[in-house]
């Protein structure tokens, strides 16, 4: 089993991500729900850090991730947990603030035991076909560097600096 990432669109409203990890579901689940661990890996490109990581892993619990490039650039994501079944399932809703909030992305993440490892399947659902199209189209217009790489430019004073 390779650990290569697979990412594809499905139907009108979905984006599906799958990835294999050489660790049991318990460990992978924990890495997604323990803020001290999330903060160490969910960082995007090199040079970015996550100074604020709120991750209340219970139904209704808050999510808030703030990223910084250390040069005054940054953006944040907010969300809520809907359902958690350790170590096999996380359901949550999230939106990016760029600084306008993007439409809610509803994400179901499953962790399945696969030999000594875990197969993760993340299924993103956008509110409708139009929203996904807009999300993808906007991303492409900005070279999609939009959300990760060119955030310096997008980061509007006032949201980035706090």
């Amino acid at each position: 089993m390779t650990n290569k990432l697979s990412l594809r669109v499905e139907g009108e409203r979905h984006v599906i991500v799958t990835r294999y990890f050489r660790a049991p579901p318990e460990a992978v689940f924990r890495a997604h729900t323990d803020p001290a661990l999330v903060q160490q890996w969910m960082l995007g490109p090199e040079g970015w850090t996550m100074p604020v990581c709120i991750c209340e892993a219970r139904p209704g619990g808050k999510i808030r991730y703030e990223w910084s490039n250390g040069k005054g650039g940054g953006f944040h994501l907010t969300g809520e947990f809907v359902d958690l079944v350790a170590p096999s399932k996380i359901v949550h809703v999230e939106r990016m603030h760029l600084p306008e909030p993007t439409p809610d992305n509803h994400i179901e993440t499953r962790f399945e035991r696969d030999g000594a490892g875990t197969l993760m399947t993340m299924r993103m659902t956008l509110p409708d076909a139009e929203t996904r199209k807009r999300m993808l189209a906007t991303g492409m217009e900005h070279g999609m560097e939009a959300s990760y790489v060119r955030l310096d430019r997008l980061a509007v004073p006032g949201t980035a600096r706090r």
Partner: protein
Amino acid sequence: MFSTQTANLAFSALADPTRRAILHRLARGEATVLELAKPFRMSQPAISQHLKVLERAGLITRRVDGARRPCRLAPAGIDSVDRWLRVLRRALSRNYERLDELLAKTAAIRNQEES
């Protein structure tokens, strides 16, 4: 450069599994409607309809060759559609490589504690 409208057309075109399969087939080389219709077990008019959508979205081009009108992938269209997924893939890949390292580290600590 690539407009929002083109992107919308392209993603609508790609939302259909038959059209994705047609693109997959065209990735191996040029083909005519007749050649495309055969493996998909669809009528020629149905395939022609899909090809029209793909052509309008800028994902394929057709040329005239006597009575034949073979289709081929339009590299620019495919490339721009793929760009978003590629950048997202790159960012996620980097995250998950980091997670791999973290998982390996925590496993090593756990083993140490157990022994």
